[in-house]
């Protein structure tokens, strides 16, 4: 049988057959035993009983005869004798019908003839007794000489019968014992043999199966580890063999698939490498512990290094710039949130020129989100910087150029206003005031444009110090003291007690406050007294400032636009300082360079609230 199933089937059939045979033999043995017992009972035990009864009967007869002889008149001896004769006859007949043993028939025959003789002799005895009533000796002698020996013989023969049967019984009993013993032995042997053989077979088969399976198991483990070259040896053609073959087919397929994947991955890798190498921005990839993993051509050129030289080495050997190193290191450690900017501007001086790069570092994370490296991009912004520099230079020179004539105009107008060249009439005064007003407007515009340009290009070096909100606001209110008094402005202050300080450039932040408060005054509600609320609230690591007024509010469509350049909503009330439209743009720029944001919420007719955020002072030392 080829298959395991077949083998198992055969084994089970065999076992079953053997067990069945075993059972049949057992049953046969039981039958035999039963027969033996039956036999014993039937053949021999009954004969024993007959023989015993015959003995008893003949003894009673003998007693009867003796009674007749000695005239014992308690019972009727003759009747007794006759009764027991019948009795004896009955048992004898039964015994005759139950002749089963060798010699039994001879004994029975003897008993028959002896009994016949006995009966005959009894008749004679009876006659003798009748005839010799006076002479008892005659009958007595007759009895002792003729009848008694016969009686004894019969009894002996009965005993023989008994013994024959009893002996047979013993023999049969022994035979039964032997049979039983033999049967037990055979049964036990067969059972043990069957169990042993089947155990051996089963163990053999199981071993074979388990070995195959564990072999399969270990090969599968190897495949799981990635070694697809595993092959199972196929022996035989049973189920295990079939499984092994299928396994081999699967392993081959996996190997082929793996190769295909590897090829694809190789292609992808080459493609990516080609792309990275061709990028005109510098790309540097670092891994754990800031070891260099990749430096593309552009980066090699920028820093005058070669990838080969620094591969797998610490980045600091390749680029000896501590700021850069700190940037990459903190991005790798996922501390990038601490940085205020997500980029760094790097200046590299080459032999003949200076190049500027914007450096952006981003972490590379694996599937579980852990940082496994950093990719750093170096954007050559030299051109942009040059353009920016040109623009700044242009703005600076333009504003400078514009200042001089404006200064002249204003000075001239002021002279006229002060009537230094001579007295002026009312109409002249009016015209002079026009010249001064617009001259001042121009002056403010020029100043604002310059400020904004400086702020936007980040050229302004801000002087950050820690001040408490109260200090700042007090300073601002002092500057605006006159205006506030003139316009009858009510100021409400609400400053969070637990704000120790904020990090600001005082003059710039004052500019913001002044701008916002002046706006609030200029855009007042015409029929209400001006109320301005100044609030400072602590939020984690930032302080939120509110400047809330009860003025005329800002229409919704303008709320975004007001932070744009040269936008003014309607007409401000105050004619003294017509704004340039740049105030909020400048304020927003200032706040942005403090790392915060400026925005507004407003309802027409109700008022506006300007919000901005500033960083909390990092240490508790305050500088006044």
């Amino acid at each position, binding site marked *: 049988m080829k298959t395991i199933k077949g083998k198992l089937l055969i084994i089970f059939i065999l076992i079953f057959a053997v067990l069945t045979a075993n059972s049949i033999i057992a049953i046969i043995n039981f039958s035999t035993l039963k027969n033996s017992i039956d036999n014993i009972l039937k053949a021999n035990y009954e004969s024993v009983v007959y023989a015993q009864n015959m003995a008893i009967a003949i003894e009673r007869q003998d007693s009867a005869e003796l009674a007749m002889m000695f005239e014992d008149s308690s019972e009727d001896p003759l009747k007794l004798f006759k009764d027991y004769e019948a009795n004896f006859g009955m048992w004898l007949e039964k015994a005759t019908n139950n002749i089963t043993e060798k010699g039994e028939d001879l004994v029975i025959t003897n008993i028959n003839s002896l009994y016949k003789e006995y009966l005959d002799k009894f008749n004679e005895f009876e006659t003798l007794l009748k005839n010799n009533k006076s002479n008892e000796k005659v009958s007595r002698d007759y009895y002792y000489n003729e009848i008694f020996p016969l009686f004894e013989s019969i009894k002996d023969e009965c005993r023989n019968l008994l013994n024959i049967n009893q002996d047979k019984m013993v023999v049969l009993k022994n035979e039964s014992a032997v049979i039983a013993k033999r049967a037990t032995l055979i049964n036990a042997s067969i059972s043990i043999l069957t169990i042993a053989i089947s155990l051996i077979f089963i163990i053999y088969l199981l071993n074979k199966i388990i070995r195959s399976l564990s072999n399969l198991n270990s090969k599968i483990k190897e495949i799981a580890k990635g070694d697809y070259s595993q092959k199972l040896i196929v022996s035989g053609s049973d189920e295990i063999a079939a499984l092994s073959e299928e396994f081999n087919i699967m392993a081959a397929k996996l190997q082929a698939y793996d190769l295909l994947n590897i090829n694809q991955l190789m292609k992808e890798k080459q493609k990516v490498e080609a792309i990275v190498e061709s990028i005109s921005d510098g790309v540097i990839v670092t891994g754990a512990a800031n070891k260099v993993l990749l430096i593309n051509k552009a980066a090699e050129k920028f820093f005058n290094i070669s990838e080969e030289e620094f591969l797998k080495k610490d980045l600091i050997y390749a680029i000896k710039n501590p700021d850069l190193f700190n940037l990459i290191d903190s991005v790798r450690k996922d501390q990038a949130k601490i940085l205020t900017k997500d980029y760094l501007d790097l200046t590299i001086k080459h032999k003949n020129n200076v190049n500027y790069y914007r450096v952006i570092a981003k972490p590379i994370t694996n599937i579980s989100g852990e940082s496994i490296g950093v990719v750093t991009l170096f954007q050559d912004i030299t051109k942009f910087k040059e353009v920016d520099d040109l623009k700044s230079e242009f703005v*600076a020179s333009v504003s*400078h150029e514009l*200042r001089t004539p*404006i200064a002249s105009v204003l000075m001239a107008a002021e002279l006229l206003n002060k009537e230094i060249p001579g007295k002026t009439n009312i109409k002249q005064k009016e015209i002079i005031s026009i010249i001064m007003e617009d*001259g001042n407007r121009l002056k403010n515009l020029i100043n604002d444009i310059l400020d904004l340009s400086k702020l936007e290009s980040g050229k302004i*070096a801000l002087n950050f110090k820690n001040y408490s909100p109260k200090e700042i606001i007090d300073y601002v209110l002092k500057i605006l003291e006159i205006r506030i008094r003139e316009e009858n402005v009510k100021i409400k202050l609400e400053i969070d007690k637990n704000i120790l300080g904020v990090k600001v450039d005082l003059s710039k932040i004052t500019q913001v406050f002044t701008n916002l408060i002046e706006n609030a005054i200029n855009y007042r509600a015409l029929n209400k007294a001006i109320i301005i609320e100044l609030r400072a609230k602590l939020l984690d690591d930032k302080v939120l400032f509110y400047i809330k007024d009860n003025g005329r509010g800002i229409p919704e469509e303008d709320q975004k636009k007001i932070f744009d350049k040269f936008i003014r909503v309607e007409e401000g009330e105050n004619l003294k300082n017509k704004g340039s439209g740049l105030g909020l743009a400048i304020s927003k720029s200032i706040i942005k360079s403090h790392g915060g944001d400026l925005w507004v919420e407003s309802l027409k007719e109700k008022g506006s609230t300007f919000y901005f955020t500033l960083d909390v002072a990092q240490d508790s030392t305050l500088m006044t």
Partner: protein
Amino acid sequence: MKKILIIEDEKNIVTSLKMFLEYSGFEVFTSNNGSDGLYLAKHKYPDLILLDLVLPKIDGFNVCNLLNNNEKTKNIPIIIISARTSKEDIDKVISLGAKNYIIKPFSMDQIKKIIKEYLREP
């Protein structure tokens, strides 16, 4: 009467400034370039010099430096009047000896105030 020297090349500004300062009671000398200005400083003994930075021939920085290094002129307080606004310029010129700096355009009152503050006492 106190003397003020204005070294400035913008004619119109000079005119207005001169008119104002004379009206305010000062004696005013002017020059429109650095070397004339130096000469005037040495010979007219002004009590204060108003100096522009952008000048033909020698620029204001140099003039300032020269004035400061000259025995005759180093005690004269120099106030820079300029349209230039960068902090670098301001710092530089202060380090070269200027006492203060006022950015054009300025009001007459402003200039008067600053002159009063720095005017050399006899």
